[in-house]
């Protein structure tokens, strides 16, 4: 069974090619089916491999499959191979299962859109690239997948390309991640020249053997890799593209910009965590940057009025939590939060899409209201998702993963408690901003016309993910709630044993209290109308500043875009060329002057010849 591993990325790739070539001929029904079934088959295969894995884990819990040699040079070679260990297995399961659900959702959501088959071709290509990314056994192959998902993200954000702002958003996401990828590529080149291989395991072994902890080389290499990861995962300072990327179709946001692609940075760090352990300063920087990201994004989420932008900022914020876990070395905690986040954020996005579908693609939360009775399915799904995002204790999956992260952070050495406090503040804010959306959208009077109904292809993903958002948390529970450790034991072969370090009883207690407090604040502000008033009154300067994501866009515009455009405006008229144009002008002027000498008088010509001879003889004589 496990020998069919290569089929998992190959199936979506194959169907993507089929759809790309024959999609328009096949018609929407067939192309939707092809797209969904291919990912579905990959999911079935992944699940069966997963089940087989649990009952009969391979030696060292590692399965390697070398497909073919890609680049062979003396002293350096790259094989295209797949590497399956618990971490990548987890990623594969999430990508295929959630990907399959989102494909299913899309078949109904995208009904009647132009470019239906094109959409599924892109989406399949994305799944294939993402699977290649997580299964790669070589950083170069990983980079191929990395760029592949970047391209698919660009294509899908700009899916409705006839709208110029969508094209702008797509270009922005592409350019910003490309900047990060340059750094990552530099990191790869550094590693390959210093260690002679890019095969992840060989590279990690070599790094641990040759470099001492805290020395310069691993710090530089991990910093470069980290910049790539930060760009892909929309972390400060490369986060500005994610809110704009919401221009794409909502299922795309669910799959790419919430569940899978944006967590590639987390995966990269976990995959090369042995290297990062050699660079403790970089880990500290990760933690600090993560806290900044999660707070900035949480504040920005508080004042958005577009439901998808709220979710986008919440994604940034939650990935900030994952990076916080990485920063303190709690790899399983990061992966656990990745799992729960993938489930509940996909659920939230899909529900947002499902709501917008029924409201004639309305996305402004203040134009909605009282939808609870009209859309019970969406209400319950969104409520479960929000509870999980807000980490509502016991009943939600998000609670357990966030608890695991905050527990690990609080137990970390010195700045741990400060980071933890920021994390708790972030948790309060998270609960506030997401329940602000819940209350605004589902309570109060009905404001809009509701049309249509949900088919089974909408309902199945929503229900499945809702159930998931309720139960996946029980895979790993803290002490006092069963002390379940299935998840961390599962990951142990790949990332080492995870200990729930003992912390003061206040830590989990505050973890309990924070979401409830946040929800309380949201409810109070909803009841006294503060949220609704904010839309009618002129926003203060501070609100505008926070709404724009704390001014990073403006800063980058001033720092990079404006100077660049100025340069472009200068270069547009070819200043270098004008030098040559000057030569040409000189030649023309000289020609006009010299032409005047050609007057046809033999005596004049003779005089000039004479003068030339005299000058020549003078030069010969006196030089």
């Amino acid at each position: 069974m496990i020998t069919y591993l290569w089929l998992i990325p190959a199936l979506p790739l194959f169907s993507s090619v089929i759809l790309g070539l024959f999609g328009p001929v096949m018609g929407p029904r067939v192309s939707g089916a092809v797209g969904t079934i291919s990912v579905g088959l990959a999911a079935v295969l992944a699940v069966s491999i997963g089940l087989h894995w649990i009952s009969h884990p391979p030696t060292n819990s590692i399965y390697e499959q070398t497909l073919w040699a890609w680049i062979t040079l003396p002293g350096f070679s790259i094989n295209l191979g797949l590497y399956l260990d618990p971490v990548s297995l987890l990623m594969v399961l999430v990508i295929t299962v959630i990907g399959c659900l989102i494909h299913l959702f899309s078949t109904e959501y995208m009904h009647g859109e132009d470019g239906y088959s094109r959409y599924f071709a892109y989406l399949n290509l994305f799944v294939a690239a993402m699977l290649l990314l997580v299964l790669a056994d070589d950083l170069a192959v990983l980079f191929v997948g990395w760029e592949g998902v970047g391209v698919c993200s660009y294509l899908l954000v700009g899916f409705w390309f006839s709208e110029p702002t969508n094209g702008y958003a797509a270009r922005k996401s592409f350019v910003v991640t490309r900047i990060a990828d340059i750094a990552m590529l530099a990191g790869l080149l550094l590693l390959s020249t210093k260690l002679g291989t890019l095969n992840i395991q060989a590279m990690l072994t070599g790094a641990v053997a040759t470099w001492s902890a805290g020395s310069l080389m691993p710090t530089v290499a991990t910093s470069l890799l980290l910049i790539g990861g930060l760009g892909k995962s929309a972390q400060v300072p490369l986060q500005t593209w994610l809110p704009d990327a919401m221009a794409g179709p909502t299922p795309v946001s669910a799959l790419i910009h919430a569940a899978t692609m944006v967590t590639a940075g987390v995966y990269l760090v976990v995959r090369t965590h042995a290297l990062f352990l050699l660079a403790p300063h970089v880990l500290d920087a990760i933690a600090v940057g993560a806290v900044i990201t999660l707070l900035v994004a949480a504040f920005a989420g508080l004042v958005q009025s577009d439901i998808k932008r709220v979710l986008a900022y919440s994604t940034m914020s939650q990935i900030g939590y994952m990076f916080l876990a990485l920063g303190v070395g709690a790899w399983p905690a990061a992966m656990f939060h990745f799992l729960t986040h993938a489930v509940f954020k996909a659920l939230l996005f899909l529900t947002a899409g499902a709501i917008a579908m029924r409201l004639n693609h309305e996305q402004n939360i203040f134009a909605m209201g009282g939808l609870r009775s009209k859309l019970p399915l969406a209400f319950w799904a969104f409520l479960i998702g929000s509870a999980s995002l807000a980490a509502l204790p016991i009943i939600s999956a998000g609670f357990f993963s966030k608890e695991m992260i905050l527990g690990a952070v609080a137990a970390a050495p010195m700045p741990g408690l400060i980071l933890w406090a920021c994390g708790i503040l972030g948790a309060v804010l998270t609960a506030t901003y997401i329940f602000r959306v819940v209350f605004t959208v589902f309570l109060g009077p009905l404001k809009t016309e509701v049309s249509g109904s949900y088919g089974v292809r909408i309902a199945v993903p929503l229900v499945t993910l809702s159930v998931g958002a309720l139960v996946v948390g029980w895979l790993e529970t803290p002490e006092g709630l069963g002390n379940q450790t299935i998840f961390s034991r599962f990951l142990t072969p790949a990332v080492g044993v995870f200990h729930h370090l003992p912390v003061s009883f206040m830590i989990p207690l505050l973890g309990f209290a924070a979401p409830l407090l946040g929800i309380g604040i949201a409810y109070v502000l909803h009841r006294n109308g503060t949220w609704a008033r904010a839309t009618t009154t002129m926003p203060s300067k501070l609100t505008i500043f926070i709404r724009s994501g704390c001014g990073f866009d403006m800063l980058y515009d001033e720092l990079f875009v404006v100077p660049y455009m100025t340069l472009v405006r200068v270069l547009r008229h070819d200043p270098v060329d004008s030098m040559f144009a000057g030569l040409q002008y000189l030649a023309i002027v000289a020609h006009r002057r010299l032409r005047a000498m050609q007057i046809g008088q033999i005596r004049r010509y003779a005089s000039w010849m004479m003068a030339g001879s005299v000058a020549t003889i003078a030069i010969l004589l006196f030089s």
Partner: protein
Amino acid sequence: MIIWQTPAGLALALFMLGLLGLLARRSLVFVLMSIEIMLNAAGLLFITAGMRWGNPDGQIMLVMVLNLAGAELALGLILILRLRNRITNLDGDAANILRDVP
């Protein structure tokens, strides 16, 4: 005893006179004659060189110069005769149809 600079100086002076005539005179007849003077000066210089080295080459070259002068004069005179049909007064400055017209 004549040192070679004396006839060479004479040749130079003749050449300069010929050149002066070439540059200053407008009539084509005089232009042609000035060229003859300059050729003659060149011949004198050859003879001077032959005297300086006691060598027959100078005289041989004078034969060449004479040949050249004869051929050149024949063609030049024919050209003057033909030009007379176009410019009646043989003004060299009037023969400027080939000038560049801006």
